[in-house]
């Protein structure tokens, strides 16, 4: 075996499993033997995982051909699971055990995966740095003084650090794409409605989408294949057929696999304040796509900046309502001897919700409150349609849209403690696609901050940069194929952090 077992990707590992050159148990043992120094896992279940791996090996021996049989992964702790605790990164769900599995979790289990446990994330997926987890920050494997991004920070850190070949994540305003970019891995947020939201603890219902995070587009295709599909338990789930994305991408390999592909570059995605080295890495990625036959064309997304206020009104509004069920009555934590009902509600929620969650609940409550609804929530939903319409106009002139995932590389832990609201501005490039419900990817295209000294730590950088690709509705196939073509021709996605 050329590669150490823990370094195997999903497709690579599957090939060895099918060839009988590797057992799921060996794969899982190799991963479990590695220490989690990043705070990536909230719950790592060695015993359960080994048992599941043995069961998978037995099934394979018995001729079972489930597509992901024996593949190890772990779930972002925003998905409810029966075999492991579920906290959503919050103290309010301390000790919670769900009586059912999220549909995405069940779909992957049916495909044969082996779950190693639950991964760290920002509390209720609210954050861009995994600094809002009630169970400790997660660290970036490329520089442990830096954030892994968020909210799927644990997932990104674990996959980048080779603690896992793949993980599930969720993306509301960029929570798959941005941590994938910060940790140098590949992640895809599919079209809104592709993956069932049943069992995904809701942050902002009209934006939340599940997706896979792995080290290659091919691995993402394999996982998304199993995760996606119609679910009668989710009224917003799409009845759209799920194509065989991996077969599509492999069919279209060759020297000029992207011939005829028009990639739109919105001026608004390349502003002055964009870090020079992020810009450089993204341009390098675009050049590589050009070399594969793609054509770069200018497009406009004039309301890109407005996406920030629009998103940060809509998401907290929905969240303020979604989080009302956490009241200390039916499940989860309850404050010590409440003196009356109001006290039970107020102390349970104040003691158990973190600062960012409480902040967003208050913003959302205000946005929906009497006399402000029209000015804020309704206005935001109207602008949301204008932003979605801008994309449809842009897609008249291109097949995909490309740009940076984030204006900077991963920042230092604590760098934004002084003004949490200012951190919202860093989501500018991922929010428009989220508001429109479009599929989007982050693909590694090199490193930034080289030579630059971090203001806080004084350490040199060398942090990954991700290229964002946005497709039209249901166009995951084109996204995955483009990313795959890029990864066939380049090595950025193969780079691994050292010393973790």
């Amino acid at each position: 075996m050329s590669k150490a077992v823990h370094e195997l990707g999903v497709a690579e590992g599957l090939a060895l499993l099918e060839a009988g050159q590797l057992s799921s148990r060996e794969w899982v043992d190799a991963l479990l033997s590695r220490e989690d120094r990043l705070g990536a896992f909230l719950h790592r279940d060695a015993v359960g995982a080994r048992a599941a791996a043995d069961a998978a090996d037995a099934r394979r021996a018995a001729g079972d051909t489930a597509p992901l049989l024996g593949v190890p992964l772990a779930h972002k702790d925003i998905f409810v699971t029966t075999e492991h605790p579920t906290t959503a990164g919050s103290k309010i769900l301390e000790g919670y055990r769900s009586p059912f599995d999220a549909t995405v979790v069940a779909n992957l289990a049916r495909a044969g995966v082996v779950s190693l446990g639950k991964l760290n994330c920002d509390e209720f997926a609210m954050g861009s740095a995994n600094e809002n987890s009630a169970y400790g920050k997660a660290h970036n494997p490329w520089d442990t003084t830096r954030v892994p991004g968020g909210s799927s920070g644990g997932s990104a850190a674990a996959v980048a650090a080779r603690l896992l070949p793949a993980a599930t994540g969720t993306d509301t305003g960029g929570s798959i794409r941005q941590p994938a970019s910060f940790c140098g891995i590949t992640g895809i947020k599919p079209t809104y409605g592709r993956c069932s939201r049943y069992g995904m603890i809701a942050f902002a219902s009209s934006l939340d989408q599940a997706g896979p995070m792995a080290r290659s587009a091919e691995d993402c295709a394999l996982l998304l294949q199993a995760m996606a599909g119609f679910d009668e338990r989710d009224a917003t789930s799409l009845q759209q057929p799920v194509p065989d994305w991996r077969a599509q991408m492999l069919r279209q390999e060759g020297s000029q696999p992207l011939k005829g592909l028009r990639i739109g570059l919105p001026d608004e995605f390349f502003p002055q304040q964009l870090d020079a080295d992020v810009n450089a890495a993204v341009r390098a990625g675009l050049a590589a796509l050009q070399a594969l036959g793609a054509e770069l064309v200018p497009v406009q997304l004039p309301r890109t900046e407005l996406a920030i206020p629009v998103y940060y009104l809509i998401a907290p509004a929905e969240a303020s309502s979604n989080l009302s069920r956490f009241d200390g009555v039916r499940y989860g934590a309850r404050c010590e001897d409440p003196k009356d009902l109001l006290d039970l509600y107020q102390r349970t929620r104040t003691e158990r919700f973190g600062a960012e969650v409480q902040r967003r609940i208050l913003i959302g409550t205000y946005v929906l409150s009497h006399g402000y609804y029209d000015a804020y929530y309704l206005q935001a939903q109207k602008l949301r349609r204008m932003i979605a319409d801008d994309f449809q106009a842009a897609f008249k002139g291109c097949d995909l849209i490309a740009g940076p995932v984030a204006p900077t590389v991963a920042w230092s832990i604590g760098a934004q403690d002084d003004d949490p609201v200012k951190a919202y501005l860093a989501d500018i490039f991922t929010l428009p696609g989220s508001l429109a419900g479009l599929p989007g990817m982050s693909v590694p295209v090199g490193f930034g901050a080289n030579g630059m000294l971090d203001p806080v730590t004084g350490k040199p950088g060398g942090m990954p940069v991700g290229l964002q690709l946005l497709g039209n509705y249901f166009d995951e196939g084109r996204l995955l194929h483009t990313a795959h073509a890029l990864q066939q021709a380049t090595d950025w996605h193969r780079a691994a952090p050292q010393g973790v």
Partner: protein
Amino acid sequence: MTAQLVRGYEVVIGLENHVQLSTQSKIFSGSSTAFGAAPNTQASAVDLALPGTLPVLNRGAVERAIRFGLAVGAKVAPLSIFARKNYFYPDLPKGYQISQYEIPVVQGGSVSFFVNGQKKTVNLTRAHLEEDAGKSLHEDFHGMSGIDLNRAGTPLLEIVSEPELRSAAEACEYAKTLHALVMWLGICDGNMQEGSFRCDVNVSVRKPGEPFGTRREIKNLNSFKFLIQAVNFEVNWQIDRLEDGLSIQQATVLFNPDTGETRAMRSKEDAADYRYFPDPDLPPLMIGADWVERVKAELPELPAVMATRFVQQDGLPEYDAQMMTTSLATARYYEAARSACGQAKLVANWMMGEVSRRLNAEEKDIEQAPVGPVLLAALIQRIQDGTISNNAARQVFDALWAGEGADVDALIEAKGLRQMSDTGELERILDEVLAANAKSVEEFRAGKDKAFNALVGQAMKATKGKANPGLVNEMLRKKLGG
């Protein structure tokens, strides 16, 4: 109609009725809606708002809303929106109630009924679909309350009337008519004890011609008797305050059947800001014309339509026709009896008289009446063909009701109530009477008409009341050459 005043004030009432729809499963989950199960055994993950759960709308609930909309001549909205009504309460698991706010499924419509013989039509504002809440059990669990969420998620149709009712009696008749209608349509079991049909009553008072006064809402009345008591108490309470120069604060109040009084709810004290917004888990509800047409085709003949038919076909007065269509069972009873004897008006009279008097006294429904339509028809026929008098018929009816027999003619014979129709026999008796009362005959011939009545009385006495009085009169006059 002219408003009847109470102590110089006009009473203004609007109703909001919560009607539990008769679906098998809940409005947003597959849990059973059956009443009376052990606590929380019919509360599924969705009903409990466990993390990650989502609502999926029940087609049966929408279908019943359409049925109601068509029945009251309302607009069935081709597009309506589910919204979240946000507030914290232990019987509300999600911390919000899924309801309809800006665009309800049923818009407009009207309901007509009679109040002491006078027809009244009340316009509806809207009817919308929403989920019921659970129950807080107040019997003491060492100072705690127990929460049962079996009822949480039961489909409700909230029917809102315009403030066009002007008295407790009108409000009560409106509620009764609505109650009858939803049962007629088969969209609600109408069981008020189990809370299947609940009334919230908005009450205000004003001096005639003045703008509306501040209203107070009486919540969750589950009997028509309480509705009248509560409204009357509330009206006088409000007038007392105004007469004392005090103002009315808008409030939600509860009626206490034991004291007969209303009091403001503590839990509703802080002015609520429900922060309604469209539920992102539920895209717009679209109802196609084809669906509405299908429901229309399956609709039973409506009470109003049936009443008109009774007026035109059977020649019933409008009031009688209305009374014969207060429930599907009443209408079926009437039609069966009417076709069996062909005496529409007599059937109506008996049903509004003897039958309903006894049913009310015994608190029975018409289905439980010991005297069925066919039996009643048989009795009416015997009155028609002169076999028995009305008085005799009442005796037979009593016997039938008491279960003394199930055959009208047999009872007539057994009780010897048949009227004497054999004129030969009557001739003989009359001759005896005349012979025995020569004095009266003298007086009659001398022109004293009173004497004739005395002779008739004697004759009836002699026939033990079995003679047909008309016949006796006729024959006596002949004999007396009058």
